């Protein structure tokens, strides 16, 4: 309990007022970014306890995918973190490709890297917009949505959908870029750094912004690791952990980028980390676009990649000659996907997104488990808000960048 609360209680000296006051925040509160429900125990305006309740957006995606083939289950991953669906698709495809032992052509890897970084920018733009709006900066919200709209338009040109893209497929991507898309992306990467500078002009040294973010929800590096934070929330505390650097997937080993880290581990540092990450993402897109002409004309789907219409069951056994007796016997069932289990994690915009898939050889996954960063981050909220004011909980939810679609699945 914060020391101020103790003093406050002593001054009051009333036995009934020693009980904390319980306030129910959400699930329909606009600042909880979805349907997060928090039981807040308050002493005056100080938070002494917090109990997050999740599950309001539970759709059973993990269970649903057990009844769909591998390529059909890909569509469900769009609905996990619906702001950065391309990154979710990529993670799932990487897991299934590892199971199948496929190697993706270089062009497809570059294209995936581009859409993943576009997802990172659009996710961080939405984060900045809503975080700033919650804290009280309306203009940033409007500017961010203007630029996010541009990215969504590019997504629409790439694959025909704006939010639930389903762009990757097992073994590559579904459509190649056209020259117009490459041109538009070049224009975007040229203009975007100036836009980031605009947002920074508005809030970077703004006194209201500084007062609301500096020193709020400080997480020391050891505590951040112990709480399981990943992504920008962890890097804000000064731990330079990034899956893209530690275990490069797709084309991240070909491109140069820096991993920005914070120093104090407060809300302001996490904001700075995300702003810098947008610049780095822009840089990665640029480098990938420069590499695209080298792979012109390459196929975007790997050799031997399964068709979209995968067989649901193991292939029926064929008669094979008996090795000794010389007559035909029933052979073993042929698995569609090799049996086994696999775990692959990627650096999604929110943090480390992992897929654990168990295969029993049929065309449907036996079990899919998603390690969602938002789920872990929500469990860190009670630790982070203790001793803060009620208004700061909005900043904490914003700074962790939780998406409930991913948390509840």
């Amino acid at each position, binding site marked *: 309990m914060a020391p101020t609360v103790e003093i406050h209680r002593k001054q009051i000296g009333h036995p009934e007022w020693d009980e904390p006051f319980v306030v129910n925040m959400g699930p329909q509160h606009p600042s909880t970014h979805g349907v997060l429900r928090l039981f807040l125990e308050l002493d005056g305006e100080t938070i002494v306890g917090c109990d997050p309740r999740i599950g309001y957006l539970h759709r059973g995606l993990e269970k649903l995918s057990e009844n769909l083939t591998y390529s059909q289950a890909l569509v*469900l991953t769009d609905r996990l973190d619906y702001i950065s669906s391309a990154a979710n698709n990529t993670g799932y495809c990487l897991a299934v490709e590892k199971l199948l032992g496929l190697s993706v052509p270089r062009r497809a890897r570059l294209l995936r890297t581009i859409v993943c970084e576009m997802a990172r920018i659009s996710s961080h733009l939405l984060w900045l917009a809503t975080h700033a709006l919650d804290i009280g900066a309306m203009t940033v919200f409007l500017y961010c949505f203007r630029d996010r709209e541009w990215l969504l338009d590019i997504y629409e040109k790439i694959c025909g959908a704006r939010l639930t893209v389903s762009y990757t497929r097992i073994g590559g991507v579904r459509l190649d870029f056209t020259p117009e898309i490459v041109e538009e992306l070049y224009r975007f990467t040229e203009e975007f750094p100036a836009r980031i500078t605009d947002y920074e002009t508005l809030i970077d040294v703004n*006194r209201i912004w500084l007062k609301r973010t500096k020193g709020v929800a400080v997480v020391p590096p050891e505590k951040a690791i112990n709480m399981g934070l990943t992504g920008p929330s962890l890097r804000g505390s000064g731990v330079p952990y990034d899956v893209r650097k530690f275990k490069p997937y797709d084309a991240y080993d070909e491109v140069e980028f820096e991993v920005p880290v914070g120093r104090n581990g407060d809300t302001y540092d996490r904001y700075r980390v995300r702003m810098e990450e947008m610049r780095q993402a822009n840089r990665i897109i640029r480098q990938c676009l420069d590499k695209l002409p080298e792979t012109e004309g390459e196929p975007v789907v790997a050799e031997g990649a399964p068709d979209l219409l995968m067989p649901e069951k193991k292939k029926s056994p064929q008669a094979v000659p008996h090795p000794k007796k010389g007559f035909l016997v029933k052979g073993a069932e042929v698995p569609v996907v090799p049996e086994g289990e696999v775990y692959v994690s990627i650096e999604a915009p929110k943090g480390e997104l992992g897929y654990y898939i168990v295969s029993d050889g049929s065309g449907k996954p036996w079990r899919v488990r998603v390690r969602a960063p938002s789920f872990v981050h929500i469990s860190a909220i009670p630790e982070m808000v203790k001793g803060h004011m009620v208004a700061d909980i909005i900043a904490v939810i914003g700074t962790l960048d939780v998406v409930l679609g991913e948390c509840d699945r």
Partner: protein
Amino acid sequence: MNPIRTIFLTEIAKGLWLTLRKMFSRPVTVQYPEEKKPVAPGFRGRHALVRDPETGRERCIGCLRCAKVCPSRCIYIETERDPETKRLVVKRYDVEVLRCVFCGYCEEVCPVNAIVLTEFYEYVGYRREDLYFDKERLLANWDEFLMTQKRPYFNPYWKPRGVPEKMLPAPKRKAEGV
């Protein structure tokens, strides 16, 4: 904080100057019902069954690939054999749009490019039945959509760019616009 900045509110003034400048730049707002943004080719919108210009019937051959690949299982097909020509004829082709997730798998796996998600997105209904498209409705959707298009119309998923030809069924390899 810098004392000059604290007293003279320089950072606030800078931010206000930026918003003031933006007042004179071109607005990005689209006044939606009056003006509309052009839709990118291949946008996954309202469903339609392609009408074959030669026969005037649907192109669908009733192979059920779309019904099998659909993740939300929203396509229902019934076929029967024509007693004279001995060919499969599609008796019923229903799409339950309220269940559709608009992934575009159906148009990608269709070997004859019969089903298509058109670029039309403004459709609503007061009842569930309004958004339950049967075969006639789907064909009517196609006619309605083609009126707004410059011919020939070609959907990118009919012959996906960059996908090797040997992975595509034969009619898809030589797919052309309608």
